[in-house]
């Protein structure tokens, strides 16, 4: 389902009818556990306002879903954690506000790994989301719920956050378009922070044009987020011809699933057929990207999660006697195992005596990785590769082995660390019918060009 199809339906009936239908469909698909809460009452009120002409805009009446780490009205903002299970946001994220200003209607809040820590939604405190194509498999994550509601055609678009692949990987696992924009293109204000230096806000859509539309609405400088850039996103109708594209061979080794490689190679052939020039390139620093990522990101998230202390809002442990006990028990009960694991890693690498050896060293290697990308982008317009080494894996398959789970992020974290735009677009299915995505990566602020290229490759 595309945004323009939904708009046609609204024109043919009413926003109220469409929103009611969408909510009914969301209930029908409850077994996927893609949504944690519906924002039904508020959604219907807004639908009536659209029908009454009180709300207008490019997305008037168009329903969407937000990942439940976005502050939004109509339902609690839980971040899929016990910590925030009953937390009602007093304000909304800038991204949500901008979409609402264009008339879009948020109908629910989607499941994620608690506090976005994970790549399967199995770390949600409220149970995992199931893959849209195979309910025995993971949805991917951490924005699994948003990917699945889009893939199931419940809504035409959904919002996610991507810190190391949390939009791109579930998009790949569920056969939808997932956009991780340039760091700073879209305001992070009002989104529960994970890692401040790599967090970005992005979208899931069924097609590239919708991603372009949604991105163009959300992009731009926000005075409430000092890291946002002035609006540079301009939809490009024409695709640049004869682009030089580098296929990252480090991501096409034998360790990568054969179906994944086959689909990426087919996509590459398609690009060639359109007259683009493909060369194999290497990204030697990619080998270290995962190590850097799992030092810097835990460090930052250990800091960003320090505010959940049971004092002012959120969960507070009962029956405690001392302040230390209040902190300890509240955080023990409010966080899932993966949260605690990452907080401990982060606290460790920031400890006096270890900071230089881990955090500072990782930042230095991060600079080398960024230099390597800069070098490549001085020669190539786009880099291409898989999104993840495999299609969606089985529920429970990796939960006992966090390292194996982390390895699944290897192809998405390099661009996150470098703050570069990367998109995941459907590239077909595996032999067993599971969706596989291909990843297009570009230099900073090349988002619109990347999307135009992806649009030109879509099978109509």
């Amino acid at each position, binding site marked *: 389902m595309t945004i323009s199809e939904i708009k046609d339906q609204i024109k043919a009936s009413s926003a109220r009818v469409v929103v009611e239908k969408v909510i009914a469909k969301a209930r029908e698909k409850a077994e996927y556990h893609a949504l944690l809460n519906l924002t039904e009452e508020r959604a219907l009120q807004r639908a009536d306002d659209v029908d009454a002409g009180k709300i207008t805009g490019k997305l008037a009446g168009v329903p969407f879903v937000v990942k439940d780490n976005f502050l939004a009205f109509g339902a609690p903002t839980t971040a899929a954690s016990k910590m925030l299970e009953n937390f009602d946001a007093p304000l909304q994220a800038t991204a949500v506000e901008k979409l609402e200003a264009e008339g879009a209607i948020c109908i629910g809040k989607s499941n994620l790994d608690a506090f976005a820590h994970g790549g399967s939604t199995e770390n949600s405190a409220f149970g995992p989301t199931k893959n849209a194509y195979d309910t025995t498999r993971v949805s991917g994550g951490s924005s699994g719920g948003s990917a699945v509601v889009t893939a199931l055609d419940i809504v035409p678009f959904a919002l996610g956050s991507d810190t190391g692949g949390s939009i791109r990987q579930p998009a790949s696992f569920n056969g939808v378009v997932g956009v991780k924009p340039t760091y700073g293109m879209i305001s992070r204000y009002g989104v*529960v922070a994970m890692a401040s230096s790599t967090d970005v806000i992005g979208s899931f859509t069924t097609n590239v044009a919708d991603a372009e539309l949604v991105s163009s609405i959300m992009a731009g400088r926000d005075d409430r987020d000092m890291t946002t850039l002035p609006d540079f996103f301009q939809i490009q109708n024409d695709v640049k011809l004869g682009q030089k594209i580098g296929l990252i061979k480090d991501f096409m080794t034998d360790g990568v699933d054969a179906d994944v490689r086959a689909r990426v190679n087919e996509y590459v052939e398609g690009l060639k057929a359109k007259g683009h020039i493909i060369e194999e390139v290497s990204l030697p620093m990619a080998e270290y990207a995962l190590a850097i990522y799992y030092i810097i990101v835990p460090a930052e998230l250990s800091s960003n999660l320090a505010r959940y202390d049971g004092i002012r809002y959120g969960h507070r442990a009962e029956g405690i006697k001392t302040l230390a006990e209040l902190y300890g028990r509240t955080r023990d009960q409010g966080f899932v195992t993966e949260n605690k694991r990452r907080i401990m890693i982060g606290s460790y690498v920031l400890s006096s005596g270890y900071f230089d050896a881990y955090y500072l060293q990782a930042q230095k290697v991060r600079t080398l990785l960024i230099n390597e990308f800069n070098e490549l982008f001085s020669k190539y317009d786009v880099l291409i590769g898989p999104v993840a080494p495999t299609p969606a894996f089985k529920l429970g398959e990796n939960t006992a082995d966090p390292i194996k789970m982390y390895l699944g992020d290897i192809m998405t974290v390099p661009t996150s660390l470098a703050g570069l735009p990367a998109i995941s677009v459907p590239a077909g299915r595996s032999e067993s019918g599971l969706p596989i995505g291909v990843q297009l990566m570009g230099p900073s602020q090349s988002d619109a060009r990347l999307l135009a290229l992806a649009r030109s490759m879509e099978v109509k």
Partner: protein
Amino acid sequence: MTDEILAKYEMTVGVECHVQLATDTKLFSGADNDARDKSPNSVVSPIDYGLPGMLPVLNRRAVDLAIKAGKALNSSIAHISRFDRKHYFYPDLPKGYQTTQLHQPIIGSGVVHVPMEDGRVVDVRIHHAHLEEDAGKLTHFGDYSLVDLNRAGTPLIEIVSEPDIHSAIEAKSYATELYRLMTYAEVTFGDLYHGNMRFDVNVSAALKGATTLGTRAEVKNLNSFRSVERAAEYEFRRQVEILEKGEKVVQETRGWDDNKQKTSSQRSKENAQDYRYMPDADIPPIVLSDDEISAIQADMPRLPGEWRQILSQLGLDYLPIETLLDAENEFRGKINILQMIEDVIADPKKAKFIANWNVNTLIPILRSDTNFKIGQTDYLALESAIYELSDANKLSSTNAKILFRELADLDELPNVETYATEKGYIQVSDEGAITAIVDEVLADPISAKAVEDLKNGNDKVIGFLVGQIMKKSGGKANPALAQKLIRERIK
């Protein structure tokens, strides 16, 4: 503890001073920065509250004030400075970290020249100064505590000195001078009662001539100059006592009890926290060009050092100068005590008169005349008129003071000379007129004995004769002129 024993040791003090910046809003939010007399948690934004998803927005005004503070500290301003997070859990710290500057502070090394009463100037080097946010406040009751976040996020600069201070009075003078620098630079409102400036003093004692410093103890959260002095002195004596017993001073944080005039242990170094400092990725670096820095620093009022230079060039000594500098702060916003002097600086004689008038007449009235209220009077115009009349010998010093007091709290100033004339304060300096009175007095039999005594060399009696002349003239005669005329006649 005898003075001889104390004299064997040298005190070394370094001071960390937190200065609350005079901004309208907080360091990273738009909440009101003035928490005085506000009900608890009433000036707290979602950012200060540490709500999920909130991001800091740096208050540019705080940066400007830091740039001004840098000039006052004779420090360089960093072209690039950054914020770091200092982590610890405490209910008054909503985000679980304090946003501060560890690695790249905005203000670099500098020096404060501290004038001492004995004429010495003690140079205290500044290690650096950085921007940071304040925490909230906890109030403890029996088995519970209440949190007030009004102050959370208030912008501070922390000024860290080198250990260049070697006596309690130097510590006090340094604290006082910092206060003057920060208030003159308009960096802070300087409300000490509300903790606008708070001092932590690091004190150590070592035998004189020792090549290394002794183990230091830090006395935290002093909010008056006197407590800085007392705490340093107490701590020095306490440490000397320990050292004299052959024991070791423990490195620790101590608190000052103003009622007991004592320090007591709060936290030893063994229990020191690991703050897990890390760069704050939510706040881009502060990037400043030389042009921006000099534009802000050019637009600053005179600092105490410049005033001292100006005033001492007029011929004023230490005490009147310091009196003026103190009074400037004391009556800031009500009377511009120094600006009055500056306005007439082109005429040094007049400027000196105004300066001395402020020290000897205006300031004592402001401080202790309970009937006096500051009106709308143009004080410079009034003092200038008094200067002109005095300079022309038309006003005795006694009458000048009376005249000033009568006119100083009026809302509208009359013509001063007309007023003085009507009131009969103008003295007669017409030689012919006074000569007539002198001759009359000298011829009067009442004066005969005095005239005789004067002739015989008893100079004191001239006062009696002048008094007679003043009486006859109705107080208007210029006494100096009268005396001169008497002496001309009786040789």
